[in-house]
């Protein structure tokens, strides 16, 4: 298989997009999907439940050092950074927020790019902050495939335009095109 993982970053305006993507991934999806979405740090519960309603795959907020499994959706927990480690493990961190964000999309993407190299797909969705732009660049620099949600379609386009400014991204896709693409990896 060409890819080993998909990582999706987003903030304001990305919830519905993520929900739609998760709803369309089938039960036997062969890759792990990591979600790093900006969220209220003190609201720890409810997000996984909300994302799970329409998802066919199990959605969870991993514990530190959880073993990564295909066909699972991993959501970065509130108030922690989420990293992908060598050896197929997730680690969490309470290091300082980056761009006022913990979880930081940049840090998740940088660690995933380091671990998966050219075997990952990085996707940036609607968002009100430039967090994620640098991380997506690291994915591209490491040979991974980069996708940005079409800013025309984004509720808030700061994150996607910042990403496109920093990186010659591989695809600018609508939500439906992102879904088609992810299903072809199946």
């Amino acid at each position, binding site marked *: 298989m060409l890819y080993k993982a998909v990582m999706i970053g987003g903030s304001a305006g990305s919830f519905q997009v993520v929900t739609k993507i998760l709803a369309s991934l089938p039960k036997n999806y062969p890759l792990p999907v990591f979600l790093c979405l900006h969220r209220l740090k003190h609201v720890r519960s409810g997000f996984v439940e909300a994302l799970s309603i329409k998802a066919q795959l199990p959605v969870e907020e991993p514990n530190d050092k959880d073993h990564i499994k295909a066909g699972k959706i991993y959501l970065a927990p509130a108030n922690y950074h989420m990293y992908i480690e060598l050896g197929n493990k997730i*680690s969490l961190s309470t290091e300082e*927020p980056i761009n006022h964000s913990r979880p930081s999309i940049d840090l998740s993407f940088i660690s995933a790019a380091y671990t998966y190299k050219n075997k990952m797909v990085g996707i940036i969705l609607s968002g009100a902050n430039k967090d994620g732009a640098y991380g997506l660049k690291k994915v591209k620099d490491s040979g991974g495939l980069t996708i940005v949600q079409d800013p025309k379609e984004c509720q808030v386009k700061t994150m996607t335009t910042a990403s496109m400014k920093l990186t010659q991204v591989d695809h600018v896709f609508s939500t439906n095109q992102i879904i088609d693409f992810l299903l072809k990896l199946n």
Partner: protein
Amino acid sequence: MIQELGIIDTKKIISAIQEYHNFDFSNYSLTTFKRRILKVVNQLGFLNIADFISNLNDIQLFEKIINEITIDTTEMFRDPPVWRELRDKYLPELYKNRDFKIWFPEISSGDEIFSLAIVLKEIGLLNNTKILVTGLSNKKINLIKNGGVFDIKKMEISEANYKRYSGKFQLSNYYKLQNNKIIFNSDLIKGIVFKQQNLINDKSPGNFRMIIYRNKLLYFNISLQDKVVTKILNSLMPGGLLFIGNKETLESTSVYNKFSELNPLEKIYKKRVI
């Protein structure tokens, strides 16, 4: 600015520190370790990693690394339900034992120490509690002894947490503002014993009724987590409580069955009596 640390350089750094300072970072979580090292490299303006490595025998550089590796960016009253449970349930229960000992291993900031001191003060148990605080970095221990010294910006978050905890007053009752820094009332911690200690190598103190060790296991790989949790287990009295971070788990350790889980959401464990 150097932005990446390859695996070969990382290994060289770990073995140089091991050789010069007899400190083993080889079982630390790799991503965080690399980030902290790069932070030191860039703060000190090293132009390449080879230069940095050849300076690693320097004791001041080592202390700087220890300072940077001991993550101090948590909050006061982080996860307010934990502190509420402590106040409403666990501390009053412990108090039945008259005097009791609590240990904070590997402390790198004053956040949780001042949080606990405030909880104890507000329920009138501060003077009945013996608290030991140990940490790797002398610099950080001294900072805490002098009142914590917190950033004003960070204090907004802590104030909000304290409100969610539903404390008796406002957090500002307990601190003063000095040169744009927050300094906590040192009366809160005057009974606390502070000690510099390497949790992994040094002999651990014993007989604690409670150990608070939240969001520290995150920075170790599974084999070091196992070693540290075993040490902590041996420092707890039977029936004693262990608090870890709400996204940490003891499940992968070899001593998991020595604990029962009191609160699976907030990760509060009790050492089994037999």
